[in-house]
Each structure stands twice: as C-alpha cells, then as structure tokens.
C-alpha cells in the first residue's frame, strides 16, 4: 500500500490508485486553483481536459495519468 503526502498530509492508498482518485480519497477531490481563483477538479479522467494538473515532486503532472507511489509529494494548492 503506497503512502503519499497530499498537501502535507499522509494518505495510504491501494496499489494502482491514480493521484486523481487519491485527491478524492484524501480531500475534497479538487486538484488546482484557476487563474480566477476558483478550485477545479478532474473532469475527463483520460488526460485531455487538463483540469487535474497538480504538482508532484516539484513537477506539474496530470493527476489522472499518474499512479500513486510510496513517498510521493502531491500539491494541489498554490
């Protein structure tokens, strides 16, 4: 069971869980803040809509296209 750090808080998830699913399991499901200050959440789940972009270990990634790994740091807030 990988354990990741989601916005500073530890979260254990099942093997094969995407970061998008982890956002839902460990928080309110939102992934980012839009330029107008609204929270946004994953929409398409298949790497197209770009709504689920989060920072993973310092790099901007799509949460729906990334599997959780042990020790991964995921940031959804600026």
């Amino acid at each position, binding site marked *: 069971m990988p354990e990741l750090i989601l916005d500073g808080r530890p979260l254990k998830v099942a093997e094969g869980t995407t970061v998008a699913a982890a956002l839902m399991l460990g928080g309110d499901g939102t992934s980012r803040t839009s*330029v107008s200050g609204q929270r946004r959440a994953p929409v398409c789940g298949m790497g197209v809509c*770009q709504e689920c*972009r989060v920072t993973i270990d310092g*790099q*901007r*990634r799509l949460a729906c296209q990334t599997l959780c790994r042990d020790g991964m740091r995921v940031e959804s807030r600026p």
Partner: protein
Amino acid sequence: MKDGADFIVIGGGIVGAACARELAKRGQRVLVLDAGLRAATAAGMGHLIVLDDNPAELALSQYSVQRWREWAPEMPENCAYRQNGTLWLAANAEEMAVAEAKYQVLRDHGMDCELLGAAALRATEPELCEGLHGGLRVNGDGIIYAPNAARWLLDHPLIEQRQARVVEIDGARMRLEDGSWLSAQATILAGGTHVTELCPELPVEPKKGHLLITDRYPGRISHTLVELGYVTSAHNASGPSTAANIQPRPTGQLFIGASRQFNTADPEVEPWMLARLLQRAVDYMPGLARLNGIRAWTGFRAASPDGLPLLGEHPQRPGLWLAVGHEGLGVTTAPGSADLLIAQLFDEPAPLALEPYLPQRFAGVRAHA
C-alpha cells in the same frame, strides 16, 4: 437600428472591429456581421510588434503599435495589454549583424530600442540558452488578448452586432444565408481568410500556424522572445518553417509559436510540425522542456502576395471596401488599417502614404469584371 446602418462591416475580428469603432467615433451607425467562423483573431498570439521587412510594413506597424499604446489606458483589464517589449535574439554573428541593421532602422524612425551583448542578454532573460550572440530590445512592442480587444472595440452604442453569414456580395449590398439582402452607404469586407469565398479574385491565401500554451509558470521571462532567424526562415521561405517565438502571458503561461505552412486548409494539429516548433523554442529556452503544455491548436493567417494588407475600395466592386490580407500582423496593424481605410472613405488626409496598401496594386483585383 430600424432604418438600417450607414455602414456594414463583414467580419467581427480585430480588423473589422477597429474599422467599426472608428466609424462609430465619427457618429456613423455600423452593423457588424460575423458568421462565427474559425478566424485568426481568436487563434493568434496577439503580439503587437513592429516589423521592418519593407518601409510600408514598418510605417503601418509602427503607427499601429503607437495607436495601441494610446488605447491602452481605455482598455479593460481583460484585454491583457502589456507593453513588455520584444527581445530579438541573435544566435550567431550573421544574425547579430541583422540585429544591428534593424537597430539602425528603428532608431532612425524614432523608436525606443537598444542592442544587448551576450552577457547583457542573459542578464535580462536568464532562462535563455548560453551561446547567443546578443539581442535587440524593442521597448514599444506589447501583447494583447485579441478576442477581448475586439469585443471592447465593438462595445459602442452606434455599433450593432449580428451573427450572420454573408453568401453573396454586390458592391455595398449583400445577401445573407437566409436569403435576405442588406445594404448600406458602403460595406467593409474584413473577413480574414474567408474573403475569397465571397470575392474569389482577392489574392489572399491561408498560411497555417501552430501554437501551444503552457500551464502557469510566472516570472520565467518578461519580454516576448523572437529569434532573428525569423527574418530569414519564416518570412522568406516557401516551404514549412518554424521560428522561436515565446511570449509571457499575464497569467504566467508561456505562449509558443510560430510555424508557417502553405497549401493546406486542414486545421488539425500536426504532431511533426508541433514537435519542430517546440524543439526550436527549447533550443532558445531549454527550461521549456520541463514545463507542461496544456493546449495546442492551429490558425490561418490571411496572407497577400506582398505581405501587406489590401486597404481601400475594390476597383471593380464600387461600394465594397477592403480591409483584408494582414497575414500575421492583423492584430498589430488593425488600428492603422482602420485609420487608412476610413481616411479614404471620408476623403480625409491619411496618416500614412496610402499607395503600398491600395488593392489595385494587384492585377487580378484590377482586372476582375
């Protein structure tokens, strides 16, 4: 506007909008018809840039960029105007010589610009690659979000906007898709690449461009970065070409161009061309390779054979006035194009010599009967 407009403008992009605005300022009632088709105002980069490939291009772009600076204080924030300047990049000694020549020309025309050596260039934009020879900073250039700028220009009590597709033009009269006819004192055609559907004699061809925008990464660069290879590779080649053009949006996004392709009307993003374009940009700004692009799309520039717009009355279609063929400079030169066209419409002195832009310079337009 029950009794009809004084003028009808076909095309509500940036050029049509600028023409409509200048007419409305003179107290004229204007009807703007827009078909809602794919067009360059919505696709392009909104780079307000002075280009000097020839004296007429320099005159029109310098005049127009100055007009944008004058408009800036009136524009709403969502037009995203910034006078951030263009930084032309010289990769080698030959391009540095081009930068120096350009500097002389622009200085001779009273423009605020400066040459930077290699070290000064890197100090100005630390994200640039090593090994560049220098650059030319043109301080009066800027950027804008053109769709909102067009909306702002059209927001005037004497301007009525209507979504409608014109299917036939007869001088100042036109037939709409629903079969109805409209007419006015004069009609201004500003339909970008679509004008040849109405006037096949116009020498306007689509030149396809690819664009990509990244996620938000504020503060990486401050100027719009343009390679001087642009002068040789993109403008003068007849085959597909790319040139690095990296623009910092006020949101922190980076907007990346530019490519040119001829003889295609296919709007699909072509991965090989997008890859070539991005590689070129990464060559100049290596850190780009670690950033995420979130959208890529294409657009079509409405190009005339000599790269200058056609501004004036159609020699063979009295009552029809042309503001077409702006290629990649439509957003930049919209204000000047409007002023030159409207000076002719009202028989007023024009702010620039008109000859280089008159439609009758093309034999095909003259000969059409």
